[in-house]
């Protein structure tokens, strides 16, 4: 019995359109996005675009609306105003899981690993979109379900070894260090096969050697063609890896450019850093 009553909405593009989607058009376009919780405006007409293969870093102090923006892109919050385009597909009124199936996934600031599962199972959940086995086939353990399971497992293991944690496959996530948990979260996100990775403060709480490891990993992912959007309030670490930097302050984009440009930007230094230099901002 095939178990699939997913509504095939406009979320999936026709194949031709997808092919027209060339490397030249940005992978992600955010246009005039505003967001308010009640009377509190969190984002004010923010626009930017991320070309394919870029690493975009968005910085801004706590409360600048960075996390909200990520949640709008991944669909966890409903878009109130403005447009978000992904691969020529407009993301509005699309459920988060459909957005994920289009190729966007997110690593949360608090990771949100599933503590009721082992590490490998966590990553296997990330492989959800790679198989179709439904309830009946799973429950009856049909050969097709087992084959699916095996392939999911292999993918999950490969992602886990990519982040160097295959030794911990059977551990419970809560027994890992914070840095290791971040890596598991990353492996889980990678397992979805997403083209755009949204990382919400991936560096927070990491030790120095873990930061280096993560940096290497991010470069490796970029090399594999994955586009990455990082949100961070620590700044100096990121300047080395970013292709493009955006500064948000109280919901407004106050600057955009290369790391070097941003470091020189007067407005950023005045408004956001209060006159201090970016280097001194290290927490």
């Amino acid at each position, binding site marked *: 019995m095939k178990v699939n009553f997913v509504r095939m909405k406009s979320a999936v593009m026709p194949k031709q359109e997808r092919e027209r989607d060339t490397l030249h058009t940005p992978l992600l376009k955010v246009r005039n996005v505003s967001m308010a919780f009640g009377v509190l405006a969190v984002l004010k007409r923010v626009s930017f675009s991320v070309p394919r293969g870029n690493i975009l870093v968005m910085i801004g102090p706590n409360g600048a609306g960075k996390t909200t923006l990520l949640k709008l892109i*991944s669909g966890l919050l409903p878009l109130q105003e403005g447009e978000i385009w992904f691969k020529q597909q407009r993301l509005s009124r699309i459920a988060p899981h459909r957005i994920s199936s289009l190729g966007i996934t997110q690593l*949360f600031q608090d990771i949100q690993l599933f503590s009721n599962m082992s590490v490998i199972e966590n990553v296997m959940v990330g492989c959800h979109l790679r198989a179709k086995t439904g309830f009946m086939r*799973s429950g009856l353990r049909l050969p097709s379900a087992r084959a699916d399971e095996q392939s999911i497992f292999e993918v999950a293991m490969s992602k886990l070894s990519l982040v160097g944690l295959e030794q911990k496959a059977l551990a419970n996530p809560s027994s890992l260090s914070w840095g290791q948990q971040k890596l598991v979260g990353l492996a889980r996100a990678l397992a979805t096969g997403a083209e755009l990775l949204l990382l919400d403060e991936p560096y927070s709480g990491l030790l120095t050697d873990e930061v280096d490891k993560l940096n290497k990993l991010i470069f490796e992912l970029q090399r594999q063609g994955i586009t990455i959007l990082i949100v961070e309030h620590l700044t100096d670490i990121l300047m080395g890896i970013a292709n493009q930097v955006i500064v948000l302050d109280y919901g407004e984009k106050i600057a955009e450019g290369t790391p070097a440009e941003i470091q020189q930007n007067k407005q950023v230094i005045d408004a956001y850093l209060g006159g201090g230099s970016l280097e001194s901002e290290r927490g």
Partner: protein
Amino acid sequence: MLVGVKALKEIPRKVTSANLQSLAIALSAIVLLTIPLGAGPYPITVMVDMGFYTIITMGIILLMGFAGQISLGHAAFFGCGAYASGVLTTQYHLSPWLALFLAAIFTGGIATIIGRFMFRLRGLILAGVTLALNLVFFHLVSSLVGLTGGAMGMMNIPPLSLGGFTSQNLLFNYYLVWIIAILLLVFSLNLANSRAGRALRSMNVHAGGSEDAAQVLGIDIMKYKVWAFVLSAVYASIAGSIYAHYTRIIEPGTFFVPLSALVVIMAILGGMASPWGAFLGAGLIIGLRELLRESMPVLVGGVTGSYELIAYGIILVVALLFLPQGLISIVHKAVPKKRAIVNES
């Protein structure tokens, strides 16, 4: 590093602790199937009842323990199966087996429709909606006298029969109920360690899951909630159909809120982390009831109803206080912890 990758080419059985599970299934199957050899008809009757509770509770564990959604109205689905079976066999003269099957489909269909709307809600409010559903069901079957016999109940439901045995035979029922219970257990365990089961567990916010994380990984949480709900309703419906063909008389009072609450209590006390919890929880509560039925006349003599009620309430409270994770947590502690197999190689 590479050693580890090699060692884990296959899904380790220990990830799913499949070896232990199969052993436990085999053992309990043997125990359950041999009990009748040594027990009189009364304990077997009690065990048949326990089987019904076990099946419904397993559904509750799928819904609450896996998907993390609460239901206080599963007696309605139990009743839905029972009444659908009853109506189809007495009014339309279908074969009881066909009726059982159709009843499950019918109940599943109803649960799908309800679930589609209901899971726009979350948390405790689901308890309210399911409770109200139970009320609606109860009053409907009590009022539809022509179809269901109303408050008096429905009688003369034909028994299930197979190879010359009918469910007028107690042992036939015993084996039928427990074989189905074990099959559903295997189904549930398979599910637990599969793509669908992981998806369910990933969104269980009460047990360390996260709906947001599940969604950004591509899981349609609405669809999975509805599926968990439908499956649990179908479990209850199957139990209900067998119950109807076994007692051959059903009345609305059986399918009311107390039963809905009872199966949730069984799920909590058995433990919601695993379908095994259903066996433990049903065993504990039914054992307790029998113990009270047996001991109270000796302790206080004569009319004991109120004492039984008091003792039952107190023991329930004590059990919930001291076993918040259910009996299964003790079993999990007793079983040696899984070691990472990579380290072994």
